[in-house]
C-alpha cells in the first residue's frame, strides 16, 4: 500500500482468482472503489511480481496499512493470501478454498458464508466471524478458521459445518441458530451461547456468565480437545428450539464446558 484512501477502499479484486494469469501491470489495472469513485489497484498499491497461471498457483502478500481496506480475498477459491497487518470488513468472505493468513486483526463479517479453505487470524477477529449473510439460513458450511486472539459477537451464526478455534474470548451470541459445525473457545464466553441451536458442537474452556435456560446439564465427560484431555460438563440444547429425530432419537446441539 502506497497511498491510503481518504475514506475506505473496496478491493474484492485482491484475490488469487482475480490475479491468476495476470502480470503486475495487468493487476495494477484491476478496479477498486473508494466510496462511489472507481479507480485502480495501481493507484493505491505498488504491485510487484506476476501471478501464477491459476488461482491455486497464486500467492498474494499484502503489505502496508490496509486497516481501511474491505473485501480482501472475497470469494477466493484457491491459492494463498497473507496480510502483513490488520484489515477491515469482509476478509475472506464467501471463500470456498485456499488459505488466508492475517498477521494482525480483522473487522466484522470475515468469512461470511464460508464454504471451504482456511482462514488464520493471528490477532483479534471482529463480529459475525463465519456467520451467514443477512437473511440467509446458510452460514459457514465448511473450512477451518483459527483466531489466535479474541473474537467478537455473533460468531458462527447459522453455522452448518466446518470448524473454528478461538484461542481467546468471544463476545455474546456464539453459534446462534447453528445447524452443524464445531467451535472451540479456549477463553470465556459472557452469555447467550448457542441460543436457538438446532445441531452442532460448542466447547468452552473458560467461563460462561449466564447459561441459556434452553441448555440442560446431562453429565460430565472426558474429552480430548486439540491434545488437551480434560473433564467437561455436557449440556444439550436449545431445548426451546425444534430438533430433528434420527433413528427415533432427538438430536440436540451439544455444549461442553471445562470443569
Amino acid at each position, binding site marked *: 500500500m502506497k497511498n491510503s484512501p*481518504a475514506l475506505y477502499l473496496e478491493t474484492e479484486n485482491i484475490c488469487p482468482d482475480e490475479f491468476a494469469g495476470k502480470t503486475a501491470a495487468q493487476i495494477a489495472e484491476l478496479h477498486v472503489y473508494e466510496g462511489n469513485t472507481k479507480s485502480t489497484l495501481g493507484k493505491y498499491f505498488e504491485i510487484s511480481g506476476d501471478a501464477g497461471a491459476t488461482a491455486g498457483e497464486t500467492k498474494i502478500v499484502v503489505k502496508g496499512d490496509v486497516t481501511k481496506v474491505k473485501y480482501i480475498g472475497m470469494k477466493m477459491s484457491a491459492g494463498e493470501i497473507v496480510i502483513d497487518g490488520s484489515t477491515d470488513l469482509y476478509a475472506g468472505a464467501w471463500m470456498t478454498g485456499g488459505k488466508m493468513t492475517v498477521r494482525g486483526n480483522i473487522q466484522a463479517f470475515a468469512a461470511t458464508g464460508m464454504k471451504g479453505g482456511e482462514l488464520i487470524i493471528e490477532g483479534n477477529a471482529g463480529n459475525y466471524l463465519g456467520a451467514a449473510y443477512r437473511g440467509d439460513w446458510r452460514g459457514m458450511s465448511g473450512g477451518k478458521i483459527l483466531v489466535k486472539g479474541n473474537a467478537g459477537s455473533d460468531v458462527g451464526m447459522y453455522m452448518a459445518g466446518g470448524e473454528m478455534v478461538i484461542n481467546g474470548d468471544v463476545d455474546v451470541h456464539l453459534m446462534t441458530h447453528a445447524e452443524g459445525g464445531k467451535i472451540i473457545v479456549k477463553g470465556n464466553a459472557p452469555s447467550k451461547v448457542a441460543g436457538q441451536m438446532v445441531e452442532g458442537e460448542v466447547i468452552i474452556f473458560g467461563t460462561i456468565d449466564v447459561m441459556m435456560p434452553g441448555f440442560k446439564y446431562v453429565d460430565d465427560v472426558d474429552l480430548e480437545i486439540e491434545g488437551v484431555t480434560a473433564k467437561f460438563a455436557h449440556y444439550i440444547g436449545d431445548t426451546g428450539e425444534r430438533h430433528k429425530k434420527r433413528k427415533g432419537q432427538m438430536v440436540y446441539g451439544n455444549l461442553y464446558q471445562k470443569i
Partner: protein
Amino acid sequence: MTKSVTDVVCPFCGTLCDDLEVTVTDDGKQILDVYNACAIGAEKFLHSQAKDRITRPRLQQPDGTWKEISYDEAADYTAKMLAGAKKPLMYGWSSVNCEAQSVGNEIAEMCRACVDNTAAVCHGTTLIAVQDIGLPTCTLGEVKNRADTIIFWGCNPCHAHPRHMSRYSIFPRGFFTGKGHKSRKLVVVDPRVTDTAKMADIHLQVTQGQDYELLNAFRVAIRGEWLPDVVAGIPKEKIIEATNVMKAGRFGIIFFGMGVTQSLGKNHNIDEAIAVTKDLNEYTKFSIMPMRGHYNVTGSGEVLAWQFGYPYSVDLTRGFPRYNPGDTSSIDLLNRGEIDAAFVIGSDPGAHFPISAVKKISQVNSVCVDPHITPTSGVSKLHVPVAFNGVETGGNAYRMDNVPIDCRKVVDAPEGMLTDEQFLVMVRDRVKKLKGVA
C-alpha cells in the same frame, strides 16, 4: 367563522390515528383546535403555528451565526454537496411522506449515496430478525376484533403510543371482543414498573439485558421442558403461568418496542420473540408486531424495499443497492468515518444518535431539512425549513402494521415555504444537470 377538517391523520407516531378533527379559520391559515389527538399529536399540530418559526433556509457562518438564503441557493448548495461527495449519507425520511421519499431515492441513486431511515436507531434490529426468521403479524383491526391476550414486551404505549391501547389493543370492543377491556388479558414485560405495567394482569420485571434468556425460557416452558428456578430475575413458576395464559387464549399478540431492540441481544431478542410467536401457533393463533416510532418510518422501509429491495441502510455507492447493517448502517458509517457528506431530512440524529456519531455529522458538509430548530440543524452547515408533513401537506404514510393511509393537508404553510417534496425535486433537477442525466 371556522371550518372543521375531519378524518385527519396524525403525523407523529406509528399508530397513525386517522380520526382527528381539526378546526381552522376559514381562510385555512390558522389552526384553532385539535380533537381526538393525544397530547403529543395535538402539540404537533399546534406547534406548527409557532410565531418564532424559521421560514427560510439558513447557512451557518464560521462564527456560528446564520445567514438567510433563498430556496434556490439552498438547492444549489445541496445538489453540489451530494453530487460531489464520494460517499454521502442521506439519513432520516421517517417524518416525510412516501412521495418525497421516492424523490429522495432517485437523488440517492444518481449520487450513489447511502440511504438510511430512523429504523437504524429504532426497529432496525427488528428488520434483521424478520430477515432471519420471518414475522407472523396482522393489522391492528385484527387485534381489536379478535385478540384476547395482549403482551407488551419492552414497550410503554402509555407514553410512546398514547392512543394505541384505546384504539386497537386493550379497550376497544371489536367483533369478537364485545366486552372490550374485560375480554382481554394483559401481560407486560419491562425492567421498570411503567405506567403500562401498572395496568397489567401479569408484570414480569425482567433483569435489563436478559430478554433473550427470558424469551428462550418461554419457548422451553411452552414445550414443557426443564427450566432453571430463576431466569432473568423471574421465578420459573411465573414464567410457566405467563406461557399458560398465552396458550389459553384464542388470539394473542406480542407488541414490542425499543426495550428489546436497543438492549443487549438486539435482533436476537426479536428473533426469539418471533420464535415464541411461531411456537404458540401450534397451540392457538398468535401474532407479533413492532411498535414503530416515527409516523412514516414504515413507509420509508416500504418505498426503499420496492425500489431497491432493502428496507433501510441501503448503500448505492457502487451504482446498485447493497445492504448489511454493521457496514451500511448510519451509526457504523459515521462512527467508522466512512462518509464525507451528510443530508438529513425528517428526523433528528443530533438528538437521537450517540454523541460520537453526531460529532461526525458536524465534521463533514451537512444539510438538515427540518421544519424545527433541532440539535441536528444546530450542527449542520445548512438548515432548510419546510412545511410540516401531515399538517401543511398531505401524502401517503404507512402505519406500524404496514397499512397505508393518505395524510391530509389541514392548513397552508407560511407564505413562500416549500414542502420536502418540492425542495427535493429542486435538488433532483440540479443533480441531473450536474450528472448530465437526461
